């Protein structure tokens, strides 16, 4: 018989035991929350915080007036990654392929064995991706995932594509400005420790608000005027087709700053820029630079007289001319583009001197324009100018150049003796602030002011009364030089194949624009530079005057 008293006694004992245990738990909690708190907290911090990399959106490319030429927009890519062996049966495969608007076979091919991560579709616009995502949700498909990826857009399509270049599927620059300024455009990744849940998901965190500021918005401002570029491309295309030519290029350089304002090539290409990578023999457009060398060296003067019988024989080889020019002064040699006169002039200088001036004008070297794929042309050392090579360099044979080299060299005359570095980028901006400005860069003085002035007078006469009359622009004085270059083949020059060139600048009083026109192998009958290229120069000149006015200053 147990008494109520005993119940209470034993009960009290058990109660005290419990209170004692609670006390110990309390002490234990004190250890955890006060004594060991720091240790536990630092352990927890490592678990809670994940290093997350934020990649900024690829920078934009703008033209000189701020028009957007290249930008990135968020797109969505769909991948297939089966979790826990969950695959697609025939029925689902058919439905999914319908949703993705592809054939079941296509989808099956892309999935392959279906065990590994594979991309199904890359870079879909947001709306389309949302639509697909909601349909997948309805079907309760879990083997597909969506990732945000940027897609590059060129709002002007092919215009300036040779300058802009392009990016690969993983947003890496592969050509043009996209390639040269890859690091800048890509921007700096920022790594931030962010709180996350056990599954790696985000936890509402005040730091997230700061994220837009963490990565900077990058912009590259080009010297290109996209309006001018578009007009030049259109004109070039028209002329190439009219003349049944293979192609061509057209460069407009701002004379004072050596900024490239337009650089058109035909046929257009995103991965090769013919204006800087196409290497060709320049023909007669080289002549002003040889004349400049002779004048600077004092071996010739403007009133010097030459006689042209129609051809000249050098080391047993006959070099022809367009016609027998008869008696000419130096200016006439240039304006009539007389080969005999030029060869006689070349003979007054040692090959080393000519070579030195060629180098001075920038031939045989990169102009270091800020575009990828620039060629340096071919300028052999003077001891390798064998046979007629000794003299034909003066008429633009046995030497190969690029378009940008010619424009750059002509700009030396326009700038009265100084070589500038041509460039297509004017500013790099980060969050709207200019972080780098490409300024006018003088490379060297090549010839004296006086020499340049003398050559300029001769180039004026080319347009006023010589071979380049059709380059004339109403209302302004133009300096320039025609060129009709033979195209070298495997065995000598190819019959009937010529490059038609015009290289010049205007207004002569205060040069603003240097323009090069090259038409590759016109087959429409006309092929002389004065007939094919010169009129194009005139048209480009008028376009420039329409766009920027006739005012002397910008």
């Amino acid at each position, binding site marked *: *018989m*147990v008494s*109520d008293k*005993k*119940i*209470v006694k*034993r*009960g*009290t004992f*058990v*109660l005290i035991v*419990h*209170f004692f*245990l*609670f006390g*110990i*738990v*309390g002490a*234990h*909690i*004190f250890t*955890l*929350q*006060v004594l*060991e*708190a*720091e*240790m*536990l*907290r630092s*352990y*927890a911090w490592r*678990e*809670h915080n994940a290093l997350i990399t934020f990649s900024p959106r690829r920078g934009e490319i703008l033209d000189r007036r701020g028009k957007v030429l290249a930008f990135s927009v968020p797109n969505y890519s769909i991948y297939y990654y089966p979790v826990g062996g969950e695959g697609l049966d025939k029925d689902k495969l058919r439905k999914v392929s319908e949703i993705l608007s592809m054939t079941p076979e296509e989808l099956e091919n892309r999935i392959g064995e279906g065990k590994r991560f594979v991309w199904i579709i890359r870079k879909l616009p947001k709306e389309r991706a949302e639509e697909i995502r909601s349909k997948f949700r309805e079907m309760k498909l879990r083997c597909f995932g969506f990732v945000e990826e940027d897609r590059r857009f060129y709002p002007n399509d092919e215009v300036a594509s040779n300058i802009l270049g392009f990016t690969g599927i993983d947003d890496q620059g592969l050509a043009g400005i996209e390639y040269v300024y890859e690091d800048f455009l890509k921007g700096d990744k920022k790594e931030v420790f962010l*709180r996350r*849940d*056990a*599954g790696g*998901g985000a*936890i509402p965190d005040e730091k997230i608000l700061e994220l837009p500021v963490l990565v900077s918005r990058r912009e590259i401002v080009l010297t290109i005027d996209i309006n001018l570029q578009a007009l030049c491309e259109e004109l070039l295309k028209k002329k190439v087709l009219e003349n049944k030519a293979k192609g061509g290029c057209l460069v407009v350089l701002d004379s004072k700053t050596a900024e490239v304002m337009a650089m058109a090539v035909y046929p257009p290409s995103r991965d090769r820029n013919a204006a800087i990578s196409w290497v060709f023999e320049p023909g007669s457009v080289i002549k002003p630079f040889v004349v400049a060398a002779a004048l600077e060296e004092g071996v010739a003067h403007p009133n010097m007289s030459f006689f042209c019988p129609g051809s000249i024989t050098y080391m047993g080889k006959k070099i022809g001319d367009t016609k027998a020019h008869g008696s000419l002064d130096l200016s006439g040699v240039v304006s009539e583009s007389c080969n005999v006169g030029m060869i006689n002039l070349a003979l007054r200088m040692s090959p080393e001197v000519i070579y030195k001036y060629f180098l001075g004008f920038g031939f045989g070297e990169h102009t270091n324009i800020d575009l990828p794929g620039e060629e340096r042309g071919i300028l052999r050392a003077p001891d390798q100018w064998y046979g007629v090579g000794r003299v034909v360099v003066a008429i633009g044979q046995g030497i190969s150049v690029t378009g940008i080299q010619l424009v750059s060299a002509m700009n030396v005359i326009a700038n009265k003796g100084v070589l500038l570095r041509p460039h297509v980028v004017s500013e790099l901006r980060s969050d709207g602030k200019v972080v780098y400005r490409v300024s006018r860069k003088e490379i060297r003085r090549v010839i004296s002011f006086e020499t340049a002035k003398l050559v300029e007078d001769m180039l004026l006469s080319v347009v006023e009364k010589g071979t380049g009359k059709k380059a004339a622009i109403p209302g302004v004085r133009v300096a320039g030089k025609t060129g009709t270059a033979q195209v070298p083949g495997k065995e000598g020059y190819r019959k009937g194949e010529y490059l038609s060139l015009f290289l010049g600048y205007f207004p002569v009083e205060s040069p603003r624009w240097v323009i090069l026109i090259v038409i590759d192998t016109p087959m429409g009958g006309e092929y002389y530079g004065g007939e094919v290229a010169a009129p194009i120069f005139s048209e480009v000149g008028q376009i420039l005057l329409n766009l920027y006015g006739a005012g002397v200053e910008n």
Partner: protein
Amino acid sequence: MLAIGILEVLSSTAPPGCREGGGFIFFKKHILSILIGLLMLFIFRNLDYDRLFGISKLLLLISIFLLVGVFFQGNGAKGGAYRWIRLAPGITFQPSEFAKLAIVIYTASFLTRKQALLYSFKEALLPLLIVTFGIVGLILIQPDMGTAVLIAGVSLILWWVGGISTLKIVGLLLVLGVLGVIFIWMEPYRMDRVLAFLNPWESPHGYGYQIIQSLLAFGMGGLWGMGLGKGLQKFYYLPAPHTDFIFAVIGEELGFLGSVAILVMYVLIGWASFSIAKGAPDAFGKLLGIGVTFLILLQAFINLGGVTNFIPCTGIPLPFVSYGGSNMIINLTSVGILLSIARRKEINGN
């Protein structure tokens, strides 16, 4: 009446405790459980507890029936365990919770009835052993380790308090201890629990993960806590943050002071409950009251000791605080029974 005050204050601390856990649905269901629980509390408070004496065997039979029933209900399984009976979509009931109260009522009435025969092993302890460990066995194979340990523990306490000799209880404890060790050895996951208890840092991403996350929560909380709702550990680091590990969330968000406040409240409840039980006019009332008291206190201790790694962790909710309808309703019903005992005392006292 003092007891009512304390208990209701505690009940009202439950919702904020749960809201930390998850979505709004949990919160609504939790509130619903509390309301049902309070209704039960009110009913049992006004019911004469003596009536339980008569129906104790019936209650026991019902719980055995239900416990067996969970295994025959095809859709009762959740995550490989057979713990629930589906009443309606989204509403389930845990028979083991019902059983724990039934067994306390039955044991109290049994001990009262057999007061003269308690010295006899065959007449007293054997039937108790068979009934109790039969039910404990059924619950163990669900499996629900926490509730099984709780029932076994409270039963032993009641047996001893009810008059079974100290020697027999100590002997029984030794036998149970040996059986327990064998039982743990048998299942690798039980072994892991013990390893986790002994040295969780040995395997922070394996068996130690859960308990380490719980300890981290306490460490994060420190003295003052991170502030209500500001804890991080509940973001899927902690397993079952709204049920078994709610105390860790409290520790993280309310700090040492909050944790201690919870401990103190259980001590106060224990004290008040025991005072009521002590004052019961008869042996059944006393034993019933003490049984209910330790049902709450021991459950609290198993939970608190477990999440702080003071004892091996077994999944069991924290009374009055954790989410989990069956447990909440049964615990509040227990309080109703206590209040019924208290009411009788008042009537008698007057």
